[in-house]
């Protein structure tokens, strides 16, 4: 008897759930534009997933409180339906299906990470749902001919080639000797391709080319080779664990290398938590708060950072800034399309040419943003051991001069 009751209540609960979810959402309800997003709130990407969500929410609140989106003489407000994709590509694709076919969402925001964006893009493409994404930088996203995918960030192959070019420039235009270690995931391998291109362009030579495993926590072997071969530049990319492992072991093994270039330094909180050990590391970043881009909603990077700090209690990583920018792009496109027709919005997105606090945004036919260069910052410490990220390249935005070559450990 008890079991029957339980089953009955379970079935009715499901029925209620279904009935509400099917009827309540459509693309534009009353004065609301409903966007859908699958975000990693649990699982291995959960910290960056939360940064992404905070960025989205911050922009939604700001745009809504500053008058919303004006389409056809009427004002609309943004609203986002979030689902947790558990950092799992399969789940992300399912949720995209669900958002589109059950919840009736007609415009999507991207998830966190290249891998998950790759899983979702075929779904949004199939249904012709425009997606503005802010956290998938892998080059392969932009070579598949997707028509409905737009990324506000620079593609992964551009992350570190500035570093190689800077090194060559400092070497009097002559090629340099590069040692590199990359994790074997879509993103890091794209960063690697960028380095290979840059090496070829500048006549540089790659003398160590190591691949790092997913379970990386020891790269001593690579560093021993670096010690023996003495390259001019060491490039490491393997998300947060790559950055942390490299910084720890370079400091412990006292590896001297004139230039150390990495990704994910701010996600790994290098300058805050690992101070002196991370000093002089060069880091690729999509955004830095000291950049002087401007818009009407967040004013500029510094104001954005201060507002974000007030709202969420921490300094915004670039993952949050680019996520906020995605909403600004959507607003702009809706207003220019002056319609909620998916095709018209898509065409308006493709014609985007604007400046946000995060940077200029203009999409190439493949969907990547071609108008925003990457920035390089260097971890710099003052006498008291307090360390900060300072932008050193491109020169236009630089707030400090690059320290090169990195002083030897024995002289620090």
């Amino acid at each position, binding site marked *: 008897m008890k079991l029957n009751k339980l089953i009955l209540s379970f079935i009715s609960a499901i029925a209620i759930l279904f009935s509400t979810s099917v009827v309540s959402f459509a693309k534009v309800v009353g004065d609301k534009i409903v966007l859908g997003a699958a975000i990693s709130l649990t699982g*291995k990407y959960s910290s960056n997933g939360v940064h992404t969500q905070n960025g989205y929410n911050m922009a939604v609140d700001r745009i809504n409180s500053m008058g919303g989106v004006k389409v056809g003489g009427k004002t609309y407000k943004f609203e986002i339906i979030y689902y947790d994709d558990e950092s799992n590509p399969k789940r992300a694709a399912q949720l995209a299906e669900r958002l589109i076919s059950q919840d009736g969402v007609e415009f999507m925001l991207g998830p966190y990470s290249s891998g998950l964006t790759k899983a979702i893009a075929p779904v949004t493409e199939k249904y012709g749902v425009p997606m503005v994404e802010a956290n998938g930088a892998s080059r392969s996203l932009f070579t598949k001919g997707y028509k409905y995918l737009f990324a506000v960030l620079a593609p992964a192959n551009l992350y570190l080639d500035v570093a190689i070019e800077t090194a060559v420039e400092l070497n009097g235009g002559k090629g340099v000797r590069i040692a590199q270690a990359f994790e074997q995931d879509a993103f890091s391998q794209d960063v690697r391709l960028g380095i290979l291109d840059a090496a070829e362009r500048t006549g540089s030579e790659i003398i160590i080319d190591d691949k790092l*495993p997913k379970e990386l926590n020891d790269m001593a*072997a690579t560093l*021993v080779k670096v010690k*023996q071969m003495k390259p001019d530049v060491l490039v490491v990319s393997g998300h947060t*664990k790559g950055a942390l*492992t490299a910084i720890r072991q370079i400091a412990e093994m006292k590896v001297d290398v004139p230039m150390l270039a990495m990704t994910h330094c701010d996600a*790994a909180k290098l300058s805050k938590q690992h101070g002196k050990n991370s000093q002089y590391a060069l880091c690729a970043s999509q955004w830095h708060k000291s950049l002087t881009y401007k818009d009407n909603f967040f004013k500029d990077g510094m104001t954005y950072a201060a507002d974000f700090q007030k709202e969420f209690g921490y300094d915004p990583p670039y993952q949050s800034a680019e996520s906020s920018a995605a909403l600004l792009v959507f607003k702009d496109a809706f207003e220019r399309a002056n319609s909620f027709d998916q095709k018209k919005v898509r065409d308006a997105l493709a014609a985007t040419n604007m400046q946000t606090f995060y940077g200029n945004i203009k999409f190439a036919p493949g969907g990547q943003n071609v108008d925003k260069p990457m920035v390089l910052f260097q971890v710099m410490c003052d006498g008291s051991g307090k360390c900060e990220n300072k932008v050193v390249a491109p020169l236009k935005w630089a707030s400090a001069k690059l320290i090169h070559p990195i002083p030897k450990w024995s002289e620090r």
Partner: protein
Amino acid sequence: MDFMVFQYPMITVQACLDGILLGVLFALIAYGMALQWGVMNIINIAQGDLVILGGYIAYFMYLYGIHPAWGVIVSPFIMYFVGIGIYKLVINKVVDRDLFISILATFGISILFMQLMNFAFGADVVLANSGYGTTFLFDSNVVLPNSKIFSAVVSILFAICLVIYMKKSKLGRAIRATAQNARAAKILGVDTEKVYAATFGINAALCGVAGALISITFTIHPYMGLPYTIRSFMIVIVAGLGNLPGVALSGMGLGVFEEFADYLLGTEFRIGSVFLLLVLILVYRRFKLSRKREYLK
């Protein structure tokens, strides 16, 4: 293939030393596994996750300004009770059952722990800085981080303490008696239930020590447990249950093997080569692995 490791003799020395220091740490984890496998006939898939949890304890001490080296004292203490808790909740229900049931149960615990740690501590990779500096050998051609040396020394100390404890103490004798013949021990007045709980607790405590050392020497992350389980599993099947010198030796052997695989095949095959070795050894020992409980000497 990259033969650099043989071209420069100093790299060979470096690889061997790195491997041995690493292997001692693996051996400590493996010894815990061998102990409870021998006593309770349970293969603990959650071994690596206990290690990581121990690491987080040291990491949090570091965050609150306590030197993470104290973690090797605090972490086993806390982990002992975590171990007893797991035993009371789950393990005591599977201890006399089929080996397969225990694998399933501990696999479940492993998944639960991973997700809980991810939920509680976040998905970031973390580490605790010991600030121990570096030792240079052979004209600074060989570099050993002192944290690695520290972790090897602590592992050896704990292993020695444990051996003495097992030999001399009342509980140690009871554990050994239970491992030899649980029924006979029970008849002779050993409270086997208590012995099982203590064994699982001691195993968890060893994992706690190892975890604290890993947070000082390497990095920790909620999902990094499995490679440690696999390694200790492998060390135990190579060495056999209850063979402490064997565990230590095969641990160091595995460490050196990993380092050389790293140099020869590339870092990406480091863990892969461990799995391959495991398969080879399993095939080799297929007939030798007896299903019965082996004796803990």
